[in-house]
Structure formats: C-alpha cells, structure tokens
C-alpha cells in the first residue's frame, strides 16, 4: 500500500488515427470468423494470431468496434472471486493485464490502484472473509482491512457507525484496478490487424450455414462468408445467435447502467465496491467519478434502463461518500449483459460442430478481456476446451457442476 499516493489529473494522448482498416470488406472465406468486435472478440482474434498462428481471421461486428458493453462499462479489473475455477481464469486474465500494454505496444492506462469491497453487517463480514481466505488458498492477493484501514486508503469514505450501512471491514486486492476501456479495445484491434486479422464493422449476422451439424459459414448483411470455424462472442445478443444456429443457451439479457460525473479533482485513487449498498465507484484519469448501478430487473435489448435504478445507486453513494453530494452527474448509459444462472461465463463447444461460444460474462466481463480471449482462442484453435475454460462448458447445467459466483459477482462488476 506504499504506492497509494495521491495521483494528479493526467492528460490523455490524442485520439489515434488509423489503427485498423475502417471500411474493411469481407473476403469470401476465412479460417476463423469471430462474431463480435468487443473486447473479448478482439482479444480472441489477437490470441488466435499471436498464440496459434491463425491469421486468416475476420472479426464481424454489427455496429462499430467496441460500441457495445466494451464502451459501456466501469472498467474494474480484479480476480478475487470465490471458487477455484474463477481464480483460474480471472487471475490468468489479471496476469495478462500486467504485461498487456507492453505486449501489444499500446497505452491502455492500466492502473493497479487496488479494488476494495466493503462489508456492512456481521454476515457480510463473514462472507467477505470467506472470500478473502479462499483467495489466499488460490494465491490471489487479498488483504483484510479494518474500517480505520479503509479510511487510511480512501479518506472520503464515511466510516461512522451511525449510518444505515456502517463500514465494518473490507477486502482489498492491491493488484486490482482499472484500465481505459476504449484504449484496450483499440490496442487489441491494432495488434490483431497488424497480424493480418480483418475487422469488419456494420456487418450483422443474419444466420448460419450449417451442413450435417457442422458450421460452414455465416450469412450477413454484407453477404455470405464461409468459415471453417466460427466463434460467437456477442455478449447480450448470444441468445439471438444461438437460436439462429438452432440451440438454446441458459442466458438472460438485461440492461446494466453506469454513469459518470463531471471532471473533479482527484479524491479517490482506488476502486471501491459495496454489494450491500449497491455501489461501485472509481475515479478516471481525467477526473470523472465512474459509477455503476445494479441491473434492471427485466429482459431487454434496449441499451437503457430505469432512472430509479440510478437514483437508488446514487442515494447509497452519497451516504458512503458524503463529498459526492455536490458532484454533478454528466451522463448515464446502459449496456445489455448476458447473465447465466450461476453468474459465471459459458465458454466452449456448442451442439453445432466447429461453432464455439464465449458468453455469460454478465455484469463483469471487462476484467476478463485478456483471459477470455486467451482461452477462447485456444479452444477454437484446438477444437477442444482450454484447461481454464473447461469448467465453463455448456454441459455444466446438465451435470450440475455450477460455479456459483453470485456472491463475488454480485454488484461487483
């Protein structure tokens, strides 16, 4: 915690010019097509090229690059989940984050400022401590903080005992932090494009060509494209794609909202989350407070949610951080997240041969971007689940081997 000195507001470099071919048209065929040019799709394409030498790859995007949840999240990175399977994939991802900017040669503003999760009741303390010990068993860095230690790291937190949800302790993952989501997408896109990957925007998938249970290619608004293998990395639209390919997935698509304030002086140099009062907040490099709410309760593809969800979230934030009461919120937005019954991702094979799935990242996919791409690329390249991805196969809903991360995924996106 010695490095927890106040950061001053930093200037961002100019926006990049041309990192990939903006109006790329699809070729007739590819070895691999990835559906979805969000973070996970771009990372998958990059690792296919980098780790497996498969460069005849297209990433197909119905809108624009990183225009979905990759451009709509609160950028929190951590790996302090509960179960062994989660430690495996999320900590692998965090390790990749630690060298990512150097590897792809692109600034991503990855900042390991720590992630703190507050506990507000005796049972909350117990469950967070269970999580803390589980992290230790899995060699995931984790520290238990008293309320005074919380205050030391983040002086703006109200640790009074007299509030509705008093701070009774916290877990802290010093290696956790944030990155600048757009720049992460651009970095992966540039690195993938440099290795020969085609990134095709404004190209919506309208169907699959499947012969004898084996995928042969896709139908799109820019014509048919043949492929030996296809990976679906489409977040909230995974159910729509799976239904086109003739099977069901245990996913529900819900809006998840976030919001930013105007630019403020730096007052918070860590990430703070609280499941009980439903708030998570960090302060971006430029000075905006970045906050996330819970999901709206109903299924939706509308990329917006109810204002009462934001209201509820800000009420909680103002109690925990009284200084926020005067902050002006600048804008809110919603993304459509695909939530699995156990709040864990679904990665691997599908009932259709050579068609692969990477979905169900729900409310917390950003942190997993590198790890998700890594295991998806390996799964596609080898035609069988990568070791870290294996527990996340679709068949866990038949076997019953669920990976219940509702506690650790909860509000902690």
């Amino acid at each position, binding site marked *: 915690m010695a490095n927890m000195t106040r950061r001053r507001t930093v200037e961002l470099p100019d926006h990049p010019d041309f990192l990939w071919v903006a109006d790329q048209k699809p070729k007739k065929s590819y070895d691999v097509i990835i559906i979805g040019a969000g973070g996970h799709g771009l990372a998958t394409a990059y690792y296919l090229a980098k780790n497996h030498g498969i460069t005849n790859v297209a990433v197909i995007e119905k809108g624009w690059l990183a225009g979905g949840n990759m451009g709509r999240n609160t950028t929190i990175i951590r790996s302090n989940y509960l179960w062994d399977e989660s430690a495996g994939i999320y900590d692998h991802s965090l390790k990749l984050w630690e060298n990512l900017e150097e590897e792809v040669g692109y600034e991503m503003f990855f900042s390991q400022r720590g992630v703190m999760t507050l506990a507000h009741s005796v049972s909350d303390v117990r469950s967070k401590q269970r999580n803390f010990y589980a992290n230790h068993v899995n060699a995931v860095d984790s520290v238990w903080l008293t309320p005074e230690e919380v205050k030391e790291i983040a002086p703006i937190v109200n640790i009074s005992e007299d509030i509705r949800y008093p701070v009774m302790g916290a877990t802290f993952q010093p290696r956790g932090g944030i990155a600048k989501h757009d720049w992460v997408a651009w970095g992966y896109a540039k690195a993938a494009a440099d290795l020969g990957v085609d990134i095709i925007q404004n190209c919506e998938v309208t169907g699959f060509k499947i012969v004898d249970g084996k995928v042969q290619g896709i139908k799109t608004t820019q014509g048919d494209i043949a492929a030996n293998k296809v990976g679906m990395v489409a977040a909230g*639209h995974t*159910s*729509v794609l799976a239904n086109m390919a003739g099977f*069901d*997935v*245990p*996913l*529900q*698509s819900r809006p998840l909202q976030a919001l930013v304030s105007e630019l403020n002086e730096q007052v918070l140099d860590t990430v703070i989350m609280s499941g009980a009062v439903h708030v998570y907040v960090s302060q971006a490099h430029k000075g905006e407070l970045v906050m996330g709410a819970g999901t709206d*309760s*109903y*299924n*939706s*593809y*509308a990329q917006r949610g*109810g*204002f*009462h969800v934001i209201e509820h979230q800000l009420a909680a934030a103002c109690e925990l951080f009284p200084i926020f009461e005067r902050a002006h919120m600048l804008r809110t937005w919603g993304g459509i997240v695909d939530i699995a*019954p156990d709040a864990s991702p679904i990665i691997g094979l599908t009932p259709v041969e050579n068609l692969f799935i990477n979905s169900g990242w729900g409310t917390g996919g950003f942190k997993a971007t590198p790890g998700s791409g890594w295991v998806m690329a390996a799964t596609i390249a080898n035609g069988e689940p990568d070791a870290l991805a294996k527990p996340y196969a679709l068949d866990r*809903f*038949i*076997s*019953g081997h669920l990976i219940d991360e509702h506690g650790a995924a909860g509000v902690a996106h």
Partner: protein
Amino acid sequence: MLHIPCPYCGPRDETEFHYGSEAHVAYPEDSANLTDEEWAKFVFIRSNPKGWMAERWVHSAGCRRWFNVWRNTINHEFGPSYKPFTQQPKSPA
C-alpha cells in the same frame, strides 16, 4: 421507468412491481422420469427473445397479484396484460 399495465389495477409505475421472468413455464409432467437434459431445460433454459415476450410480473406494492403481460424487449413497449389461467392474447407482433 416502465409504466406497467396491471390487469387488476391499471397502469402503475415499475417500482410497484417485481419481475417474474418468462410466462407459461409449466412444471414438467412425469417429473419422476426426466433425464438430466430435460431437467436442465426446465430449470435453466428460458427464452430470451429480442422482440415480443410474454412475461410475469407481481404487483408487490399494489394488489400483490401475479399476472402476465406482453412486452417488447427492443423498445419496452407493452402489449396486452392478462390474468393467470385465462386465454393468452396473441402476440402483438
């Protein structure tokens, strides 16, 4: 905020309701003889359409009764709502 048409009380604010997900998911007949695949389908698979969806809501802060309603997941437009065990109106699509 949604304005949800309760078939008992009329349209009310969303904050008076809780969501009950897809409507008309019946408990499987012959449940003693279901395979694991069939159980997985009943327990975990729910339709997730982009478009019109028949779903359940409960008017928790109102009449406290469950009902079904058509709603479009693209634009949050509501279709007809209807009481349980009554004839399902056609999809507005």
